[in-house]
């Protein structure tokens, strides 16, 4: 806890630098990744992420230093090379794209690991910390490293905001973009380049193994909260930034711990929460909607049956036992009871000694349900010429969805009929 306050007081200059660095890296990856997600290229992102490892190692072997700029260039080259190879395999052989991706990913990554191992055994003192590219190490984001990576992140933000409308149409309808004369080939090239760059910069904080998750997960989480590409991109960026902050904190409190897994865990938890809690698209809200619909149907059915009972003995406001309701129509007992309690709470029913009785409000509502049911039955048999013995089932569902406007129209169309197809009186 003490550590927590120490960290978030941002007293130490190196804390500030690591925080800024992580946030920039993860949020720019998330923003660019939104388009990887929208173009459904998640697997391709994974391949690129793994394929930058040999580039980093090679750049290190050739230059002998850990200069970030040189490493970035090396990573960028092999990242691109992997994409070209995938494309080549796809166009020259009958292999499917996912096969090509899997092939390229494992070969490039294997070579990378091989190089990394041999560098580590070479005894070169400068190599220490190179393996942090595997799982990320945000603590290294200081000095020139920070400046270089932050600069690349800002370039990424700049490109996406300048070409936002082009990226959008490219993701939605590339052939239309081509027909209206947008330079689709160039734009694709730009998008691929910034994707590779996002991967290359992101690995400092996240590492090659988990980088694809950093690219895709923020966008996937953001997708649950909005229906607008711009908002989605912004939300993804913010979520990415938040996970970067978490990564920086981990790096501070446990400097030897790799940050990538923590960052990815945080963003995955956010994605999971979105999956459950987001309005409209989230699981929870869908379940709630369905539940409230089930309750509505149950309540309306109960009122309708109480009305039916009253219709038979002509005493609508008499108290009824649960058994009497069950005799009219079977309901599962638990649901029946909770339905009755709900109706009481809403002021449609009152109860005394376990017996239930309409209020005026409840009576009117029950009457309306019966009316809608019979009106709809009549409509089906008169207008759609459906046999009277087939209309009941359908009316059972439709009665719950008819709006007051539709109700008025039905009444007018059928000229306020007296009885339904079963010769039952329609109450007004």
């Amino acid at each position: 806890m003490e550590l927590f306050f120490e960290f978030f007081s941002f007293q130490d200059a190196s804390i500030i630098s690591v925080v800024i660095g992580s946030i920039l890296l993860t949020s720019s990856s998330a923003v660019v990744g939104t388009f990887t997600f929208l173009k459904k290229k998640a697997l391709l992102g994974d391949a690129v992420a793994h394929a930058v490892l040999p580039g980093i190692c090679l750049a290190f072997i050739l230059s002998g230093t850990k200069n970030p700029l040189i490493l970035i260039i090396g990573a960028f080259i092999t990242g691109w090379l992997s994409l070209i190879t995938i494309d080549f395999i796809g166009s020259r052989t009958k292999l499917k794209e996912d096969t090509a991706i899997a092939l390229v990913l494992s070969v490039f990554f294997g070579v990378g690991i091989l190089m990394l191992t041999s560098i580590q055994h070479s005894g070169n003192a400068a190599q220490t910390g190179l393996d942090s590219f595997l799982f990320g190490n945000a603590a290294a984001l200081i000095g020139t490293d920070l400046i270089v990576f932050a600069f690349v992140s800002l370039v990424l933000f700049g490109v996406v905001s300048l070409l936002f409308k082009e990226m959008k149409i490219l993701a939605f309808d590339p052939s239309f973009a081509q027909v209206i004369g947008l330079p689709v080939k160039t734009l694709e090239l730009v998008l691929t380049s910034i994707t590779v760059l996002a991967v290359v910069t992101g690995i400092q904080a996240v590492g090659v193994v988990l980088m694809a998750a950093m690219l895709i997960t923020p966008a996937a989480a953001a997708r649950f909260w909005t229906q607008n590409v711009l908002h989605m991109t912004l939300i993804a960026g913010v979520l990415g930034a938040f996970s970067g902050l978490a990564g920086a904190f981990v790096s501070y409190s446990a400097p030897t711990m790799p940050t990538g897994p923590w960052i990815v865990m945080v963003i995955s938890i956010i994605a999971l929460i979105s999956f459950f809690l987001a309005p409209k698209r989230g699981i929870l809200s869908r379940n709630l909607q369905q539940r409230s619909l089930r309750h509505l149907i149950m309540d309306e059915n109960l009122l309708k049956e109480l009305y039916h009972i009253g219709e038979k003995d002509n005493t609508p406001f008499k108290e009824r036992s649960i058994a009497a309701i069950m005799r009219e129509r079977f309901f599962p007992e638990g649901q029946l009871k909770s339905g009755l309690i709900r109706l009481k709470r809403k002021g449609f029913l009152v109860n005394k000694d376990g017996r239930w009785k309409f209020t005026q409000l409840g009576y009117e509502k029950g009457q309306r349900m019966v009316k809608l049911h019979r009106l709809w039955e009549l409509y089906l048999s008169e207008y759609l010429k459906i046999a009277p013995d087939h209309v009941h089932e359908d009316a059972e569902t439709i009665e719950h969805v008819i709006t007051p406007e539709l109700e008025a129209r039905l009444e007018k169309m059928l000229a306020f009929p007296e009885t339904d197809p079963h010769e039952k009186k329609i109450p007004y």
Partner: protein
Amino acid sequence: MKVEATNPAVEFHDLTVSYDKKPVLWNIDMTLPQGALIGIVGPNGAGKSTLIKAAMGLLPLGSGYVRLFNQSLDEVRHRVSYVPQRESVDWDFPTSVLDVVLMGRYGKLGLFRRPSNTDKEIAMNCLKKVGMEAFTKRQISQLSGGQQQRVFLARALAQEADIYFMDEPFAGVDAATESALLGILQGLAKEGKTVVVVHHDLQSAAEFFDWIVLLNLRLVACGPIKDVFTNKLLQDTYGGKLTVLAEVGELVKNREIPSREKY
């Protein structure tokens, strides 16, 4: 039966198109007139979509060429509009109806620039023309098939082009709406625009189109509707399937012979 247009907007010159070395369009050679509503008609798999895509530069041509207004496609792109088949995009994309129609303005806007208020007005107007003004803010994932089709049509109208290529713009559109929309296209043709439509309903084709292209892997007929819409020619198009051509195509593919020798 082939009638050449006197003042052609489109010229297909000896066009052959293949997928995977298997030719699906053979030696299409025809001209289409300016200021007309032109229907492309033929059975499933006849190559209608392929013909449109080839004209739009979306497919590599095996041989031959397409010229619009006597110029190459690249020279006249800003005058060309395209309605792809509805299934060609992901309708779960997070965007609104107005946003999609605004995409029709992107060509005129060019790179970097954002749509202005004028662009938005034009887009709104086009939505009104196709009867979708009540859906401006609606998510495209919440549209019915016919409504999606109308959004695509509005997007094409927003391009304010001189020539329109539409691939089955009325698939899933109810008959009354189809007539209304065909009326709009007729209006465009009256203004001198050229509208090329892949169409399946022969009845409404007979009612609305000026010029008809009958297609079934090869060009069966092409000309003013009164000359082309004859029982015999329709029989030729739909009736006896052109099994020989299809078989030869299969052969060429299997032996990997280039469909057209380069030298």
